């Protein structure tokens, strides 16, 4: 951008000033330059908004410059007049605007939007402003009307929101209390579930031990039945042996009877021999002694056979008792086998039942473990829900407070909006 002053004639190119003229010309040019400078001073003042300056045209010799000076003076005067007129108009318009704004502010402050803000000035320049203000007033009236309706609805809705928030807070509190109780119950359930799982494990272990014991019992009963079979078999063998012994004893008895008979006859013979010896007197003395000795032997044999008979009788009684004991053993063994069979059937049933019990206990143990895990997960979830509910409760309280505040604000807004009169 050039800073060159367009009115500074002295700044004209030196090529012009340096043209070879005469002294008069040089003097004349100097006078013109001074006059031009005077015009430039006035023009510079106009340019700076000073329209009061004038060029004394009468004192300018150069006709061209004089005409310019007169034109500058005329332009300055005309501009000054225009400015004055424009200033007056601006003052009028400003006053009208101020009046309109004041009227609008007064209406707004008073809240009466039913009227219109019409300034006293009828300047055409104010027409758009008045129209705009009217439009603004209409818009404001419409806005106030809508705001009033909205405030009314807001008040109603905020009351509803407050009621709902209060209800929600109450429900949330009840829910939090219920969840807390549920969490406590679930904690107890968790403990109970843990206890049940341990008990189920214990039951499963006991069932396993019982199963093992029952299997050992089954083995013991089998061994018992084997022993009973052996006892019965041995009893049969003992019975056979007793029968053989009885026959032998009977045979011995027969032989002893024969011996006894022989001994009795020997005794009888000895008696008769002694009798005959005694009848023979002194001659039969030796015969009598031999007979007496024979008789003693026979009596010894009889005594022995008597003892043998007593022994045989005792053996018969013992054999009979042994036979009865053997028969009793056979009966007891048979009864034992029957009882063993019954016990075996019972133990088989018990084994089956214990096996089912063991399986069921194992299933229960597994189920209770799963239940414990599920319960722990539920407890964890309930804790999280409780925490969330606590947060929701706090939020609900905040919402209730906010709703109450909102209700107050809505009421306040309604009160404020009521101040504006739109009809």
């Amino acid at each position, binding site marked *: 951008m050039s800073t060159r002053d367009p009115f500074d004639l002295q700044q004209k190119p030196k090529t012009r000033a340096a043209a070879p003229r005469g002294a008069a010309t040089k003097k004349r040019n100097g006078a013109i330059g001074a006059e031009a400078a005077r015009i430039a001073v006035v023009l510079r003042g106009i340019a700076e908004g000073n329209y009061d300056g004038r060029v004394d045209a009468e004192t300018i010799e150069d006709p061209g410059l004089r005409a310019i000076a007169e034109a500058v003076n005329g332009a300055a005067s005309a501009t000054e007049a225009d400015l004055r007129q424009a200033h007056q108009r601006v003052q009028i318009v400003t006053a009208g605007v101020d009046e309109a704004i004041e009227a609008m502010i007064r209406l707004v402050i008073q809240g009466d939007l039913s009227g219109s803000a019409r300034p006293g000035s009828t300047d055409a320049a104010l027409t758009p402003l008045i129209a705009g203000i009217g439009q603004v007033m209409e818009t404001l009236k419409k806005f106030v009307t809508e705001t009033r309706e909205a405030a009314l609805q807001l008040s109603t809705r905020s009351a509803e929101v407050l009621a709902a928030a209060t209800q929600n807070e109450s429900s949330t509190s009840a829910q939090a209390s219920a969840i807390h109780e549920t969490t406590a119950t679930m904690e107890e359930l968790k403990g109970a579930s843990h206890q049940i799982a341990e008990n189920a494990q214990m039951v499963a272990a006991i069932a396993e031990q019982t199963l093992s014991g029952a299997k050992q019992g089954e083995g013991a009963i089998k061994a018992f039945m084997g022993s009973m079979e052996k006892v019965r078999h041995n009893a049969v063998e003992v019975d056979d042996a007793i029968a053989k012994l009885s026959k032998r004893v009977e045979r011995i008895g027969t032989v002893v009877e024969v011996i006894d008979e022989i001994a009795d006859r020997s005794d009888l013979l000895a008696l008769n021999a*002694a009798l005959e010896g*005694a*009848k023979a007197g002194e001659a039969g003395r030796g015969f009598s002694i031999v007979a007496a000795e024979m008789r003693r032997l026979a009596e010894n044999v009889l005594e022995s056979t008597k003892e043998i008979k007593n022994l045989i009788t005792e053996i018969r009684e013992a054999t009979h008792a042994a036979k009865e004991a053997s028969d009793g053993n056979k009966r007891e063994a048979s009864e034992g086998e029957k009882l063993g069979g019954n016990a075996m059937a019972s133990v088989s049933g018990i084994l089956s039942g214990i096996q089912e019990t063991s399986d069921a206990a194992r299933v229960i143990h597994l189920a209770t473990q799963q239940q414990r895990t599920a319960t722990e997960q539920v407890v964890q979830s309930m804790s999280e829900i409780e925490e969330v509910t606590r947060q929701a409760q706090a939020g609900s309280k905040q919402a209730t407070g906010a709703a109450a505040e909102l209700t107050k604000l809505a009421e306040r807004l309604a009160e404020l909006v009521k101040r504006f009169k739109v009809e």
Partner: protein
Amino acid sequence: MTGPTSELVLFQVGARTFAAVVHDAVRIGSVRDVPADELVLETALGAPSARARGIVVASHDDAVERTLVVDQVLGTRSVPEEHVHPLPAFAAVCLTSGAVTGFVLLEGDPLLLVDLPTLVRERATEAIA
């Protein structure tokens, strides 16, 4: 034993032991082998219980042998005659049976001395009566 002796046969009826002269006994036998009608069971000496032996006695008059059933025949003994005593008169009067003729002291104990043929005959007479 240097003096004269009496040869006696000793037998038991019931719990009592009696003595008889060996010549009164033909033999000693078994009761089982003798017919029942020839047996003399109950006499003035009593009734035997064991009935183990029979003393065959010969009757003086009819020569019929009778078997006196006794419980036991203990054997024969040689007894000095001074140990054989006749039955006192008072005792003989008191006794209803004539078969008891005296008593014998055997090792200090008195045993009734019985006349076996008389005893058998008395029993036969009682049976007929």
